[in-house]
């Protein structure tokens, strides 16, 4: 029977059927952070349970820490960080704290340390765990109750998803990045359209992407609603794992981590990326996006009453007018960071735009390397100096920071941010803050121009 990549990953990790129709799956590796794990550890304590396989877990401090110093910036952050370290100490779990040279944003650190291999099943109390699908692993986000479950049992009760394949074709124009590809896909397919599905990305455009680009694509697949995102493992995947600290291992390395040719998907989607332009979100959902050369939609394009009310609400929140151009919208802040776009490849792309230029006056520009190792690599290449010379704040410590504003990087009411992150939700980067998602190179261009512009005017001049 022909199987999809997702089917194969589940088959190899299935322990048994459960009476209610779910299955019990084995979790090869589990990652935790300081804010979705505390109540899971408390649950273990109150039930008198221990951690079943301490070596199959890793904790990383990344969500609440400041990126300006290597210690907790305030008493509540200190409580969360100390609590994580104490829980890990008690249960013999590895913890990469603020002073550890491997610390960083969890989904940047884990592939960087070579922990992910094709064929693995990886869970984490964070929705962007879909990132690991870029390496042919089944990664998915879980809630805190499930964190407790996996700590105690090394398993999860799992409801099988349907299979969707998104085929991405078309010759890309120069200057189009992985971020533009996934933003284009989300715009076409819709936020939530992949709820209940595992999505496999396939097609020439995906095959040609490098690993960093594939991680960006799989990372943001959760904004489609995909609980898991996958890309078949190929030679690039195997090369990407070479020379890493952990040389990720999988129990089933004889399997071919690709979908069988005859396999049938519940839904196939075809996306053409020929001639797409850099994308920018204009609203408060990641599918509210336009290409840089387009005008914003108008009310008449919204079909139902509810769509119209959502549309009007988004326009009001963002302080934009229907039908206006997205180009030349002035910004207050530029932010490069997050598990979507803070890898060395992203920093290089942004630095290429910034070289020899200055951030516009009045724009606060910040860059946060995805990990301490990414920062070291950037400094070796002199990229830090490019950012600093341009007027960016080059942060010494890594973390999620203003992607979700759980630390001291919070935008003010009505501040407009060009952001390389993943969510333009209402209030995400600060109460009343207005987020425009775009690629790191587009953020760099916006920082220099002081407004949203087409980065290709910079790089192809």
């Amino acid at each position, binding site marked *: 029977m022909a199987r999809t990549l997702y089917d194969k990953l589940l088959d190899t990790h299935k*322990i*048994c059927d*459960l009476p*209610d*129709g779910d299955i*019990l799956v*084995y979790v090869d590796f589990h990652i935790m952070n300081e*804010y979705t794990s*505390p*109540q899971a550890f*408390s*649950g273990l304590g109150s*039930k008198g*349970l221990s951690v*079943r396989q301490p*070596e*199959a877990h*890793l904790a990383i401090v990344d969500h609440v820490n400041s990126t300006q110093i290597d210690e907790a910036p305030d008493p509540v*952050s200190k*409580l*969360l960080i100390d*609590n994580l370290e104490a829980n890990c100490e008690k249960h013999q779990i*590895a913890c990469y704290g603020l002073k550890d040279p491997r610390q960083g944003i969890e989904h940047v650190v884990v592939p960087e340390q070579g922990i992910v291999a094709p064929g*693995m099943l990886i869970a984490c109390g*964070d*929705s962007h765990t879909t990132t690991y699908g870029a390496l042919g692993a089944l990664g998915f*986000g879980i*809630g805190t*109750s*499930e964190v407790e*479950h996996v700590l*105690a*049992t*090394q*398993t999860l*009760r799992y*409801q099988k*998803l349907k299979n969707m394949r998104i085929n991405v074709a078309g010759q890309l124009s120069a200057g189009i990045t992985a971020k533009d590809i996934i933003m284009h896909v989300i715009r076409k397919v819709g*936020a*939530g359209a992949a*709820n*209940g599905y595992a999505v496999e990305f396939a097609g020439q455009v995906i095959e040609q992407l490098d690993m960093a680009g594939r991680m960006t694509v799989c990372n943001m697949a959760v904004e489609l*609603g995909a*609980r898991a995102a996958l890309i078949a493992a190929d030679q690039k995947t195997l090369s990407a794992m070479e020379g890493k*600290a*952990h040389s*990720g*291992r999988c*129990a089933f390395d004889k399997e071919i981590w690709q979908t069988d040719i005859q396999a049938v998907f519940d839904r196939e989607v075809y996306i053409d990326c020929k001639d797409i332009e850099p994308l920018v979100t204009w609203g408060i*959902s990641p599918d509210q996006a336009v290409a840089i050369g387009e005008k914003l939609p108008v009310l008449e394009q919204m079909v139902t009453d*509810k769509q119209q009310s*959502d549309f009007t*609400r988004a326009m009001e929140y963002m302080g934009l007018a229907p039908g206006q151009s997205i180009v030349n919208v002035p910004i207050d802040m530029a932010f490069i960071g997050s598990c979507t776009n803070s890898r060395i490849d992203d920093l290089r792309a942004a630095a290429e735009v910034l070289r020899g230029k200055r951030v516009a006056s009045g724009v606060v520009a910040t860059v946060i390397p995805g990990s301490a190792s990414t920062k070291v690599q950037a400094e070796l290449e002199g990229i830090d100096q490019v950012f600093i010379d341009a007027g960016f704040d080059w942060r010494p410590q890594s973390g999620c920071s203003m992607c*979700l504003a*759980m630390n001291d990087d919070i935008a003010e009411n009505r501040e407009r941010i060009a952001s390389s992150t993943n*969510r333009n*939700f209402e*209030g*995400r980067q600060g*109460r009343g803050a207005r987020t425009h998602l775009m690629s790191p190179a587009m953020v760099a261009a916006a920082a220099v121009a002081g407004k949203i512009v087409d980065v290709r005017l910079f790089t192809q001049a």
Partner: protein
Amino acid sequence: MEQVTGVAAPMPQHNVDTDIIMPKRFLRTITREGLADGVFADLRFKEDGSEKPDFVLNQPSWRGASVLVVGDNFGCGSSREHAVWGLRQLGVEAIIGTGYAGIFFDNARKNGLALAILEASQRDELLAKINANPGAQVSVDVVAKMITIGDWKVAFQMDKATRQALLDDRDDTLDTLKLLAEIQTYESALPDNSCVKIIK
């Protein structure tokens, strides 16, 4: 839980994400408690802490609603289970929509929050009814998978495992530990040294 009966409030916006349900400033905690005030905080309260009178749950008819009738893709975004804990602490016991983000769906099931699924046209009909009769009581019967308002009834969808979890009110962690033999059998069949061992 077998059935929820209470006031149903309309929240027809699509793509209501967990950042809106539970803003991040309420996540800076190591316990599950004290989250009721965080629910929809930016929509419910002004910056000075006073209520925004226009917000649906602040209106007299819908204050204290135990059922929400919601737009598509409710609960999208962040995995934060705090969103579900807060909704439960505020007294919300059931949500009626057309579909939910996966992690939110699982979190709800783990915390006895019933998520009922209707076709969009049925959901819209229900929204029209509760808007026409503010404060009307709606019943969500998990046993019969039936929603009732007045003499109007509609069957909802809920998968078998989720329905069973709500009815059993079990502790999944303790329940799974009864399957330790099966887990050990699986582990012992793995090739030696086949799993990542983390470097501390």
